[in-house]
C-alpha cells in the first residue's frame, strides 16, 4: 500500500475512532442511567455536547501552556491510536505498526497527561493542580502492573511489536494471552480500571469533591478538544488491550464486539463501587496487581 493511501486511511481511522469513542461515551451514560433507574440521555448526547462546545465563544486565556494542553491531550490519544493495529490482515486498518511500537505506545499513554498537567496548572484554579497531582500519582502506580504485564507479553512473544504479539496468539481462543498468561492479563486488566478512571478510581475528576479536577478552567473549544482526546484515547486503549490480550481482530465487527466488552469491564466495576481515596488507590495498584504482574513475568521466564 502506498504511503499516501496509508495516511488517508489513518485519517479516516482517527475520525472513525472519534465517532466510536463518542458513541461509547453515550452508551455509558445510558447504561449508568438505567442502573440508577433513570431513562438517561440519548445515545448521541456526546455528539451534541461536542457540537455545543464548538459553538460557544470565549475570549479568556490563561497563557500559552493552557492553550497547548488540550492539543497535547488530543495528540496523546491520536498518537496511541495511530500506532495500534485495529484489524490484522487489513492493511488499511493496521495503522503505523512497526517493530518497537509497544514501547512508543507506553510513552504516548503518559504523554497526554503530562501536557495536560502543565496546562491545567497554568489555568490557576486550585482544583486543577489537586486533580493533576492525584492523577499523576495514580498513573505512576497503575503503570507498574501494566508495564510488568507488557514485559511479560513481550518476553513471551519474543518481540516488542504489537503485530508480532497478535500473530503469536493465533489458532483458537485458548491461545489468547488472556488464557495463555492469565497472571499478566489480571495485572493489566486491573491496571485498566485505573487507566479509565471510573469508580472506584475516579479520584481525578472526583465529583462532589474537587468538582471536575484538571479541566476546571477549560471551556468551549478547549473543552471540545479535550473531549476529542478523551474519546480517541479510550478507543486506542481498548484496541491496544484487544491486540495484547484478546488476540486482535480479523474483521471490524469482531473488533467492535471485543473492544466493547473490554470497555464495559471497567463500566460494570465502576457502577457498583464507591470512590477510593488517593492513598487507597495507590496502595491497591502497588499490591495485588503488581504481584500478579511480577508473577506473570516469572511465569514466562521459567516456562520458556
Amino acid at each position, binding site marked *: 500500500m502506498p504511503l499516501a493511501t496509508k495516511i488517508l486511511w489513518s485519517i479516516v481511522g482517527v475520525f472513525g475512532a472519534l465517532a466510536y469513542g463518542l458513541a461509547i461515551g453515550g452508551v455509558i451514560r445510558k447504561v449508568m442511567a438505567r442502573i440508577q433507574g433513570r431513562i438517561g440521555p440519548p445515545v448521541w448526547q456526546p455528539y451534541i455536547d461536542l457540537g455545543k462546545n464548538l459553538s460557544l*465563544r470565549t475570549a*479568556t486565556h490563561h497563557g500559552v501552556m493552557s492553550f497547548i494542553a488540550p492539543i497535547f491531550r488530543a495528540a496523546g490519544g491520536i498518537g496511541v491510536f495511530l500506532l495500534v493495529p485495529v484489524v490484522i490482515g487489513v492493511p488499511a486498518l493496521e495503522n503505523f505498526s512497526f517493530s518497537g511500537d509497544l514501547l512508543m505506545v507506553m510513552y504516548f499513554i503518559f504523554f497526554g497527561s503530562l501536557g495536560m498537567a502543565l496546562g491545567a496548572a497554568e489555568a490557576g484554579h486550585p482544583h486543577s493542580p489537586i486533580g493533576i497531582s492525584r492523577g499523576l500519582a495514580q498513573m505512576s502506580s497503575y503503570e507498574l502492573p501494566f508495564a510488568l504485564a507488557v514485559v511479560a507479553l513481550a518476553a513471551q512473544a519474543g518481540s516488542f511489536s504489537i503485530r508480532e504479539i497478535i500473530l503469536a496468539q493465533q489458532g483458537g481462543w485458548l491461545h489468547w494471552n488472556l488464557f495463555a498468561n492469565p497472571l499478566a492479563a489480571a495485572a493489566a486488566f486491573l491496571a485498566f480500571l485505573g487507566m479509565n478512571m471510573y469508580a472506584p478510581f475516579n479520584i481525578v475528576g472526583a465529583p462532589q469533591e474537587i468538582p*471536575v479536577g484538571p479541566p476546571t478552567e477549560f471551556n468551549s473549544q478547549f473543552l471540545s478538544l479535550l473531549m476529542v482526546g478523551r474519546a480517541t484515547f479510550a478507543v486506542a486503549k481498548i484496541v491496544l488491550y484487544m491486540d495484547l490480550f484478546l488476540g486482535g481482530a480479523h474483521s471490524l465487527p469482531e473488533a467492535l464486539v471485543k473492544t466493547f466488552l473490554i470497555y464495559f469491564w471497567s463500566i460494570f466495576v465502576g457502577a457498583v463501587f464507591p470512590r477510593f481515596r488517593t492513598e487507597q488507590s495507590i496502595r491497591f495498584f502497588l499490591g495485588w496487581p503488581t504481584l500478579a504482574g511480577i508473577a506473570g513475568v516469572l511465569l514466562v521466564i521459567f516456562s520458556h
Partner: protein
Amino acid sequence: MESKKLPVLPVSAPPEGSVPHAPLGEGCFLGETQRPKAPKLREALATIKNWFRANSLWVMAYGTGCGSIELRPLTTARFDMERFGLAMRPTPRQSNVLIISGYLAVKSLKRVIRAYEQMPSPKWVVGLGSCTINGGMYWDSYNTINQLDLYLPVDTYIAGCMPRPEALLAGFGYLMEKIKKGEANGWHHYLENLDWYKENQKKVITAWDLPDYNW
C-alpha cells in the same frame, strides 16, 4: 430598596447585521453579529448552532436561596433532567445556564456576577421563584435584591414559591424553544448595556471590589 426607582430596559434581540456597542474592546465576543458576510449561510449556521446549544444545556451547580432544594430532585430517577441533555457543571467556565434559585442576597449577588461573567457566551439566566421577580416573601428584607433583571439579563422566569421540579423542567423546555428560535439574547443585551447594569450593581454592592468585567 432604592433599586425600585430605576428604569427597566426591555430585553430585545440584537438588530440584524449591526456591530453592537462593545464596551470591552477587542476581547468582547458578541457572537455571529460581528461577521455580516453571507447572511443566508450565517443564518443556517446559527440555526444549527442554536439547536446544539439548546439540546446540551449545562447548568451551573450553584444555589443562591431555598429554591435550589428544588433543583436537586431534577438529577434523580423521578425527574431525570439528563433526558433533555441538561447536566450540572460545577464550574462557570463550562456552564451555559445560571439559575438564580430564589432570594438573592447582596453578598451572593457579587459572586453571581462573577460567575456569570466568567461563563462563555452565549449564556442564559433563569430566575427561579417569585423572589427573583419582585422579592417574594423577602420583598422588604434589608439585604436581598427584589428585581433580578436590574442586575443580570434574565431569559426565563419560573414563577412560584417554590415551583415544583416539573415547573422547572417546563421552564427549561421554554428556554430551549427560545434558544432554538434565536430569541434568548440576554447575554447580548448585557454586553450592550453593560454600563447600565454595572451602575445598578454598584448601587447595591457598596463594597465594590470586583474588576470591570470578570474574564
